[in-house]
């Protein structure tokens, strides 16, 4: 997409921001395990678009821009639960 994203050097890595929780791309086997645990298909996961700043960074880190279809694991701090884990499916931006 021809979005105006700042160039690599000048761009701030959003993952380093205090308010952005830990995002990790799952391997295919991990992803399979997660889907099995919840008894769902990929489509039943919450989604995140590939032009989301976090995904952009993840793509840069993985050295590929074809992360669509992968699942990210998000680990958040929670005042009541300690940590809370959520999953999102990366989808192509519309």
């Amino acid at each position, binding site marked *: 997409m021809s979005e105006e994203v700042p160039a690599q050097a000048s761009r701030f890595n959003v993952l380093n921001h205090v308010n952005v929780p830990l995002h990790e791309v799952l391997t295919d086997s991990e992803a399979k395990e997660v889907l099995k645990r919840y008894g769902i298909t990929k*489509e*039943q996961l919450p989604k995140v678009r590939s032009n989301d700043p976090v995904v952009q960074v993840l793509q840069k880190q993985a050295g590929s821009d074809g992360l669509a279809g992968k699942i990210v694991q998000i680990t958040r701090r929670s005042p*009541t639960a300690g940590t809370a884990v959520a999953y999102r499916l990366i989808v192509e931006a519309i």
Partner: protein
Amino acid sequence: MTMRTMLTNQPKKIGHMKFGLLSPKEVRGLSATKVITADTYDEDGFPIEMGLMDPRLGVIEPGLRCKTCGQKVGDCPGHFGHIDLAMPVIHVGFVRVVRDILRGTCRGCGKLLFTERLREDFEKQLKTYEAEEKDVSILAKRVSKDASNVTVCPHCGREHGTIDVDKPTTFRENGHKLTPSEVREWLEKVPNEDLKLLGLNAEVCRPEWMVLTVLPVPPVTMRPSITLESGERSEDDLTHKLVDVIRINQRLQENRDAGAPQLIVEDLWELLQYHITTYFDNQTAGIPPARHRSGRPLKTISQRLKGKEGRFRSNLSGKRVNFSARTVISPDPNLSINDVGVPIECAQELTVPIRVTPANFQFCADLILRGPEPKFPEGKYVPGVNYVIRPDNRRVKVTDKNADEVAKRLEVGSIVERQLDDGDVVLFNRQPTLHRMSMMAHTVRVMPGKTFRFNLPNCPPYNADFDGDEMNLHVIQGEEARAEAEILMKVQENIRSPRFGGPIIGAIHDHISGNFLMTWKNPKLPLEDATQVLSRVGFKGQMPAILEEKDEHGETRKFVMGRDLFSTLLPPGINLSYKANACPSGMKEKEARLPENDFWVVIEDSKLIQGGIDKTSIASEKGKLLDHIARRYGNQAAREFLDKVTKVGNGFLTLRGFSTSIDDEDLPPEARHEIEERIRATKERVDVLLKQYKKGELQALPGRGVEETLEMEIMRETGQARDAAGETASRSLGMDNSAVLMARCGARGSMLNLSQMAGLVGQQAVRGKRIHRGYQKRTLPHFKWGDLGSDAKGFVAASYKTGLNPTEYFFHSMGGREGLVDTAVRTSRSGYMQRRLINALEDLKVAQDGTVRNTAGTVIQFVYGEDGVDPTRSVGGEPVDFDTIFASVASGKAKAKKGGN
């Protein structure tokens, strides 16, 4: 039952749905008759053939059969007719679609204004959209936007003008009017392939069908005429509108055929357009709504469907139900919180179905023998029976006369509709139903009177008071529903609110005053009084310690300490320690524990050791003790405790006597002087500030202007005056004052209320500033121009008791009105937001694995609320209550130590 109805009663699954337009051909095909006469009935009251009430359009009179399908009233669905329009007319609902098509296509050749290459490009995109099941309308919008920017048709070279719409239905090309006929001709030329790109499916939606040449006439069943008592017929609004349409249509046709001047024909044409537009939507912007003879705007098709009173929200999403009752509510402190008092009149109308089995056959037969209006043995209510549903589904009404007969013929498998009886489970509800506690299950107590009654702790969850509030009651009709309601919806199951993790049902008002007076500083109760108070709760346990003392006559008097009396109500094993509500905010624990203060509640092993039981112990929202009992001993115990505590509170207060009056706000002369002095000082200081300001000597605060600084200083000064007056008032009014007592223990009112009544009302504000609007340069004509003094800007130096002078009164009203408007705006806005939220969240549920899912099975949250904690079972939102655990461990240790010594 006929074969036909049996078949239609079969549930059917909807495979798919398709929305499209009716073509003129289809309209004529569907039509049962052409309608040409504007009249409905002739002089004899018979419907006119080919009129708007033609018998072929369906039946509305009982007994008659439909001329089209031959069925009777309930079964004939009605049949459409049609009106052939003399000239075509634009359909208001499609003006925007038509506009977009006209803008994007050529008037000459009808093709989309794209070059072949661009077209192919878009077609490719359309294919990917369809393949990925994306919203095609987004693409269609882009197509019409891009095409409308083209000025010359790439296919035939014709120049493309700008298309404008004159609201509501007139199209203009380069400023020249396009008649509906011209629009229709244009639309006819648009090829099917191009429509696809514009987001239309040509099979079911040709654009020229958006310009009407034939108007469907809805069946009479959807616009029935009603016969008034006077024998006059009154037609439905839709019929009225159709009469207008036919009349103008006829005149238009006559004039056109007679070769009338163009001007007249055009006028009539426009009139026809107006009538058809308002027939669809009588609230179209840009045209006056069509009105009834009485001046009331007509309710046409769109009005029938739209909005809160429309078909969807009023009849499809919401329905009226049977087995429900509504009446005024009133309080009854003698009921349990689980109960609801139901008037005998209601109870005899509402019924519970009982299936007759061999086991309860005799019971049911005896019930029926009582008839619908049983005699009450010894004045006690007993339920009768209103209907018996026989195994063949026939409903037999039970009357006094046929009761014997019906009872004799009773069969196993029948259903007896028994009248409401004590102990039946019902749902009780007060609107607005904002949270789940607005609808709870109660057990019925049938009693004389005409109101629903419930105990006062139930006021907060329903947000009810008794100034004329009405509530609804629904009788549960099935065993499963009843069990579910009892487990999930019963009042005692809703003591703790999911909103803030504390009790929402709790003691209020007098319950708090009573318990506080009974426990604070531990008063002595004569034994007779104590026993009477205990008798109110039917007390059966260990009596509290009975003590003796000699009075001034040397006679022995037996008495019971108030705290001991209260302690008898507690379940065993409670250890709690906390600050009471009556404690002044700045007071430290050590000071609060002093006997002369007694503002620290200590409960050890279910004995109240010190402190007064007030709002922080037993009230709704705040009650720690109540909350503790509900969490540790369960809802049943909490309900029992609450039932007892409220009755004891009322009982004690009744014996002791408690009242408040205007002289509770009387201040001693010294205090009055002090306040007067303070007011004088404040006014002086404001004057000094003003003088400084006028001389230009006032130092502006950082980041503010001089005027702002002045306003702030004055606001602070007047605020301090009010606080000081409140301070003075509360110093001179002690806990022996009923009003102060109620405010301190949290029963009702606040110290601010009191200081405004006894001391002074204080600065009035509108929009957070002193009163500043009104006349030119002044708030009221009573003041000089530019007067910035305290009196001129809404400082009320009087108290509610002494009374306000006219200007003060007016300023006070201004401040009060702002508050009123704010609440009105807030409720309407939050109501709308709530509606949107509910619509978005209504079908989410927590699945078996703890995830939150919607109906499609999509995960919304992986663990409910991130932590999986049920807020109802949380402690003020926290999953674990460390404070109480620590306290109980500490007290256990203390006890162990004591035991050791």
